[in-house]
């Protein structure tokens, strides 16, 4: 994927992998804090970044970038969406953080192992990633705070975000493709 192209230029691929992971950890932190006022619901770009991490870095590295993000939050840095730091673990939304790790992994795994090179398949991989994020997030919410009532878990934790996140899966796919095109285009001056 993208990282495999990058490491052709630098001999030690481990550094490139680490820095690409770091870039995505930072992107996740930034996108948690950026709210864009789209009607009717203001949205953050966080799910999008998680999908991009999986689609471009692959399963392992994508998941690692989210592990690093969760570790930083647990150590007390307020880089989660609410700025809570360690406190996120006592909040109903903590499940989504765990979902990010699983979601990046699933999206990456499906994109890596999918048959053919159709863009549609990577879009489906993105949708599967979204599904995993919401499954984990809503499970935490439902069993931790709603006493196992899945009806309310669905209404509070999944339904409001369905359409917007379908859009984010489209964006993630297109962005991953555009970035690939950008990096693999022929250049006049090789660096």
């Amino acid at each position, binding site marked *: 994927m993208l990282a495999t192209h990058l490491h052709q230029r630098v001999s030690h691929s481990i550094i490139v992998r680490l820095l690409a992971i*770091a870039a995505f950890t930072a992107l996740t932190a930034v996108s948690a804090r950026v709210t*864009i006022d789209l009607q009717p619901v203001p949205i953050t770009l966080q799910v999008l970044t998680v999908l991009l991490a999986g689609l471009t870095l692959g399963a392992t590295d994508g998941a690692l970038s989210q592990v690093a993000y969760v570790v930083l939050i647990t150590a007390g*840095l*307020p880089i989660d969406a609410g700025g809570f730091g360690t*406190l996120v673990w006592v909040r109903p939304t903590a499940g989504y953080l765990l979902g990010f790790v699983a979601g990046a992994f699933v999206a990456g795994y499906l994109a890596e192992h999918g048959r053919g090179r159709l863009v549609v398949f990577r879009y489906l991989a993105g949708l599967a990633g979204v599904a995993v994020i919401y499954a984990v997030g809503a499970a935490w919410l439902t069993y931790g705070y709603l006493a196992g009532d899945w009806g309310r878990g669905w209404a509070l934790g999944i339904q409001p975000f369905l359409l917007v996140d379908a859009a984010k899966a489209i*964006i993630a796919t297109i962005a991953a493709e555009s970035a690939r095109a950008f990096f693999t285009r022929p250049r006049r001056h090789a660096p």
Partner: protein
Amino acid sequence: MFELSRNVLIGQYFPTNSAVHRLDPRTKILGTLFIVVAISLSRSLLASLLLLGLLVLITWLARLPFGAILRGLRYAAPLLAIFLVVQLVFLGWQPSAAAGPVFFEWQFIRVTRGSLQQMGLGIVRLLSFYFIAGLPTLTTTVTQLTHGVELLLRPLRRVGLPAAEIALVNMIALRFVPTLAEELERVMKAQASRCGEIGTRLQRPDRLARALLPLVVPLFVNAFRRAEELAIAMEARCYMGGVGRTKYVRLQATWVDAAVTAALLAICAVALWTPWPALADLFLGR
């Protein structure tokens, strides 16, 4: 919408070189975790007050300015007050708070012993959470925190978790955050000045995607370009991965750190498992 860099706030550090500042970051991370768990599990008002007292004591020992810390509460205070009053007045109808005598009842308003108790616990818990959320970053530099994380994760190397690599990723990610925020802000301004459709009413997913794409792609490509440049720079300075690498900063835990960790664990255990008398019994009668 365009003031992103101001909103991306990585915890501020307040240097006073106090005893709390000089503690090992591992002690502070573990201590924070213990206290957060204790506050959130505690159901007794007395235990919660004890924990709040402990946090105030730590803040005082760290010589942090109370005024500056509490100033953050000023903006949230009116909303919190409304929330708590609403809770006090209407919670009486919930089965969880209906136990005990009713002190006041008028039409749909009902104040019971249970609702008073829950409101008291809510206030104390909110204050405690407010104090503990700031403490780690106010007393520890980000560098020290990430070193602490690395050392705490080190035992997990046995099961295949790359601790040194995760620490490096953390350090670099934190350095990237303000840069990327600034870049996103610049891209948004550039798109808006060219009549980009940011902030319009969009309901179909494909239109939403089309509106967001010009923001996301430049940000994403720039992040990758920065990562690539930094990789070349590190390569030029002979970075070869975590194995066999020595450190400029070496963390040394002393007996004080062990004692503080043990004391915090003990305090949290005592706060959770002692059968504290209910304060409500003393003030409101049985």
